[in-house]
């Protein structure tokens, strides 16, 4: 086998791993959301299917696939059919740039199976040097799915939901991008692999707490999670942009929402919590076991943030729309601008301590 084929096989394996992780993760997160919300409300939640309810999401999935697929007469068919796809695709695409484990040291036992002359053993599907730009741009494609869905259904409430979602996305993209700029300043690179490496060698970027806080809040808004889920608030807009979707098309919206949840958590971890970095441990010290540990630690960190998302959703009431805009433009934007300037000043002042 030549190097190209080997690289191809390795990449396909990585893609398979990330997709499996995301999609299986989605089923587990949906179950976790239902169980945890139940615990918070002194209930039990679904606990009958398989072991303690583990099969619940699969049962739900089968139900959604088998259900009748209704396309109402008054919809814009092409846009209507395209919207779930446009929503789902970016949600899965984001996983491509996330580094999910330490680089595999060459000379491992299993490598001859793939061929010994593999060069790129980085556990990241595509270590592109504009990883952060990729993240910001691909997440904002997701909002097209919402807008298209709301438009295609040809009813007021869905359209209102879509409009709210788009305005909200635009408002919160700014603080999101600016808080990322602070991270980029500290890392000195746009590549996510490089950002993790810098954090591994130095300190986790959680030390830049204001940037983290702004990023966290902006991500809540970007994923349309509860304090900011004005695009689909039941009391005002029925179900917002997915009101008239049924069967698996609704399932795709649901899947995309939770896939976004996981990838957003992965990004929070990558940017501020050292990615796959295991604290006080050299991942390259014990060969493959160390790499495996780093992947597991990464998954644990993601799980914590997914839990945070769920926890916040079942604790806080929804913002009013003017409050949302107020928070986005008058609070988060100045804070994030100040963070960028402050970080830059500190970087210059303590240049010698760093790098």
């Amino acid at each position, binding site marked *: 086998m030549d190097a190209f084929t080997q690289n191809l096989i390795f990449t396909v394996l990585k893609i398979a791993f990330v997709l499996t992780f995301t999609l299986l993760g989605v089923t587990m997160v949906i179950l976790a959301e239902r169980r*945890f919300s*139940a*615990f*918070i*409300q*002194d*209930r*039990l939640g679904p606990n009958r299917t398989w072991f303690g309810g583990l099969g619940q999401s699969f049962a739900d999935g089968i139900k959604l696939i088998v259900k009748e697929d209704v396309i109402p007469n008054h919809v814009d068919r092409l846009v209507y059919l395209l919207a779930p796809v446009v929503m789902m695709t970016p949600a899965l695409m984001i996983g491509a740039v996330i580094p999910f484990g330490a680089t595999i040291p060459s000379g491992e036992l299993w490598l001859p199976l793939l061929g010994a002359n593999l060069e790129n053993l980085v556990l990241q599907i595509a270590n592109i040097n504009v990883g952060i730009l990729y993240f910001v741009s691909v997440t904002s494609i997701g909002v097209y799915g919402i807008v298209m869905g709301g438009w295609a259904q040809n009813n007021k409430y869905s359209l209102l939901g879509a409009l709210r979602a788009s305005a909200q996305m635009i408002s919160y993209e700014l603080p999101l991008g600016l808080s990322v700029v602070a991270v980029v300043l500290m890392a000195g690179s746009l590549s996510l692999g490089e950002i993790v490496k810098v954090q591994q060698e130095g300190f986790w970027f959680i030390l830049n707490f204001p940037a983290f806080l702004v990023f966290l809040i902006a991500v809540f808004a970007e994923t349309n999670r509860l304090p900011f889920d004005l695009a689909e608030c039941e009391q005002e807009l029925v179900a917002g942009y997915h009101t008239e979707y049924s069967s698996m098309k609704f399932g795709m919206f649901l899947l995309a929402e939770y896939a976004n949840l996981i990838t957003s958590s992965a990004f929070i971890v990558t940017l501020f919590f050292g990615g796959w970095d295991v604290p006080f441990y050299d991942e390259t010290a014990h060969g493959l076991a160390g790499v495996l540990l780093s992947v597991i630690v990464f998954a644990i960190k993601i799980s914590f943030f997914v839990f945070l998302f769920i*926890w*916040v959703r*079942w*604790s*806080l009431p929804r913002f009013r729309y003017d409050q949302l805009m107020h*928070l986005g433009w008058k609070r988060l934007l100045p804070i994030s601008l100040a963070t960028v300037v402050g970080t830059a000043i500190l970087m210059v002042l303590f240049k010698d301590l760093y790098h």
Partner: protein
Amino acid sequence: MATKTISVDIKTVKNDVYLVEIFKGLLLTLKHFLKIGAKSAYLAPTERRAGKLSTNNRATIQYPEEKWVPYPQYRGLHRLNKDEQDRTKCVACEMCATACPADCIFIEAERSPWADEFPNDPKREKHPKIYEIDVLRCIFCGFCEEACPCEAIELTEIYDFAAYSRENAVYDKEKLERVYDLTKDGKFYQEGRKLDFEF
């Protein structure tokens, strides 16, 4: 009484920053999540009055395995009471059928086998040959219970008696007397009993 004006300043810096209040809210839900120090809002009234925590501090009753025990005044499935010698108390006076707003009771009377034992009691001369209650029509108002002069028909605490066919949902005399046997001590759900006839 003079009007008392209370001014609450909600526009404080603390409230405006949101984060403090959000953190307090998160702490409260975390307490419920971990089941420490937070009382369930879903206690039974008696337990709530006693200030108790419910079992496992949760509201869910896992139905087929655990069953909710109704209060004594609950109006569920009917029963036909029997006297000490296992004879039905019903005298087929049809007061219940008359009182029934849903018209779900059907009675056909005949001379009772024990009529000669009560020469001075005209009430025990008759007994129902057929006594049927269509529980699909019944609205569980309890008027039959109130109308009955002999305390023969009563509503019990049984609430899970769904049937697979309409025929099985018509309770005849044998079934209603069997319900009496199962519920006479009032511990149908406490003892985990089940209705043992065909549904």
